[in-house]
């Protein structure tokens, strides 16, 4: 027997075979490495292309066009005096000041010209003139050079998004207005500056005034609702299922259904919200409360699955040690397992919230698609949300909304990026080695 083995060992043929095979094996290793590298590079290239397109389209939205106007704050036109109170100043006739200023925007304008040039300014101009005055009330009876917001058509032309060398009929600005435009540009009175409206306004019918503050705050309220509902319920359910529930057919059924729930299309949750929350319980339509509740239902399975996985990953020796010390089951769970499972749970929760942030379909079902020109101040006020805002803008025919769409996508990406950064931070902060 022993002799046979020795004979086999001295058999050079089998050893050569191993060497040959080894060459093949290492070639396979190298091949696989190359495939992996190609796949990674392709993924990165696609991602880079995507980000580049969005950013290059969206960045111009962070700038707006402004035109310099000579505004004379004449006390007779305004119908106030230097002794007027603040309330009287607020009610002063700024629209007349604006009218005069626009009429004299360029020298020698006919009545028709004034009408045309008026369309090159945003409808917000009298408010801007008023704000400037209220901030510096001592400018009464002086003439000030103020940059006021231009109309979106001017803005798009200046940014090069709209073409000018096409037929007049197909253009937003006619030939005469183009002459004005060129005059403004050549005299340096038309320029771009930081677009504060984009960050401080809610949605608007006028692209130059539309901003994402309304939908951003709406999304924030919605996510808060999701977190407040889904996090405690999710953690409670996972701790119960993982540690306390008896293992029988019924709990098995629940577990299978939680996994199934995670795969349910989000629009189905939207239907549920519409059918039950709005129609049966009479929740206020298109509010963060309803949107958040629906999205919480959608996020729950994600949180439960993540939390249970992290509870499972806690070494059983820790729990045994605590129980052997005479800890009650609840003490063992809450003193030892939950703290150790927390980083994983938080990561799962933030991933779920990130999903909820990007979800559009269920919000459309519960009416968050409505045009809301105000920034919401509470959970029960009608509001928009970032993804729905993108959907609304992308559908708008006005050219000015195109860059807004891209810019809103940039904002949602930044939001997501910050949330993921928070997840990484929390993970490293709470993670403990054992």
């Amino acid at each position, binding site marked *: 027997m022993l002799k046979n083995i020795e004979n086999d060992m001295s058999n050079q043929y089998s050893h050569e075979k191993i060497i040959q095979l080894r060459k093949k094996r290492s070639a396979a290793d190298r091949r696989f490495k190359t495939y992996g590298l190609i796949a990674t590079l392709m993924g990165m290239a696609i991602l880079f292309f995507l980000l580049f397109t969005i950013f290059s389209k969206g960045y111009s939205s962070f700038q707006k066009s402004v035109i310099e106007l000579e505004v004379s704050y004449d006390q007779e036109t305004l119908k106030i005096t230097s002794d007027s109170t603040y309330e009287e100043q607020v009610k002063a006739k700024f629209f007349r000041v604006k009218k005069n200023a626009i009429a004299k925007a360029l020298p020698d304008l006919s009545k028709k010209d004034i009408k045309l040039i008026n369309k090159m300014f945003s409808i917000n101009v009298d408010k801007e003139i008023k704000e400037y005055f209220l901030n510096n009330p001592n400018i009464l009876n002086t003439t000030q050079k103020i940059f006021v917001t231009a109309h979106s058509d001017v803005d798009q032309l200046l940014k090069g998004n709209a073409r000018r060398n096409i037929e007049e009929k197909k253009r937003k600005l006619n030939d005469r207005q183009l002459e004005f435009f060129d005059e403004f540009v050549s005299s340096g009175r038309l320029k771009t500056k930081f677009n504060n409206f984009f960050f401080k306004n809610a949605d608007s019918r006028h692209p130059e005034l539309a901003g994402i503050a309304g939908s951003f705050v709406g999304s924030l309220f919605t996510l808060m609702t999701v977190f407040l509902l889904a996090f405690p319920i999710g953690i409670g359910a996972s701790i119960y299922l993982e540690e306390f529930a008896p*293992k029988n057919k019924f709990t098995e059924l629940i577990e299978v259904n939680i996994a199934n729930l995670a795969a349910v299309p989000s629009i189905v949750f939207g239907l549920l919200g519409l059918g039950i929350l709005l129609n049966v319980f009479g929740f206020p339509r298109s509010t963060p409360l309803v949107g958040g509740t629906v999205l919480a239902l959608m996020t729950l399975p994600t949180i439960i699955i993540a939390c249970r996985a992290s509870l499972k990953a806690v*070494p059983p*020796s*820790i729990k*045994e*040690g*605590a*129980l*052997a*010390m*005479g*800890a*009650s089951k609840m*003490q063992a769970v809450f*003193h*030892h397992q939950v703290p*150790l499972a927390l980083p994983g749970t938080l990561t799962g929760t933030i991933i779920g919230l990130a999903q909820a942030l990007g979800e559009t379909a269920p919000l459309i079902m519960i009416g968050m698609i409505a045009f809301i020109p105000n920034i919401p101040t509470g959970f029960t006020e009608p509001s928009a949300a970032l993804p729905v805002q993108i959907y609304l803008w992308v559908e708008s025919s006005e050219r000015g909304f195109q860059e807004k769409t891209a810019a809103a996508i940039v904002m949602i990406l930044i939001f997501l990026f910050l949330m993921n950064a928070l997840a990484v931070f929390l993970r490293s902060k709470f993670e*403990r*080695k*054992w």
Partner: protein
Amino acid sequence: MKNIKISSKNVNVHYGAKQALHSVSLNINENEVTSLIGPSGCGKSTFLRCINRMNDLIDICKVDGSITVDNEEIISDEVDVVSLRSKIGMVFQKPNPFPKSIFDNVAYGPTIHGIAESKTDLEEIVHSSLKRAGLLKEVKDRLHEPGTSLSGGQQQRLCIARAIAVNPDIILMDEPCSALDPIATAIIEELIDELKANYTIVIVTHSMQQAARVSQRTGFFHLGELIETGDTQKIFTNPDNEKTQGYITGRFG
């Protein structure tokens, strides 16, 4: 003649359909070290885990028979497992300090059982427990470092300190030295010898030398049965049973 601390009669344990212990009857004396030896899978750890009802954690495990601690039956649904375990400490095979500071590890038991009256009381308990576990000198300057930063042997002594901090009567040790090097093992064995003055110790071990060194009485398990029990010296020099003889002389196991 010593007092009997733990007494088991006809203990049977089933894991599902498989019977792990067959009618084990064993008396364990107070303030003595009793070692349980036998080949792997013979049921010695299962028996040990019956004494503090840790087998309750395993759903399919069924225990019947009778075990009394201080003449009180513990194999019964009416027994409060939590207070039973506060009387019976346990040290596991692999050191399992909590991922907390050294101080918090030892303070955990006294805190949950409300033993310490005040903060200084708690500190006193932690210090004396660490001292009795022979660890105080090594860690007294770094009580607030994580328990997991200690070496394996120190971690195991930390677990012993944690167990004695609630002042139990009995300490169960499930192969406490199997993950340790010989030096750490020697320190723990010395410690066990000191601890027996105050505690009743039951130790499961794979090492016959260890059983011979630390224990006064020894029980030999084989295939779920308690084959022989008696004074350690007698078991290792002149056992009554052939199987015991075979095991200690290294013919099987």
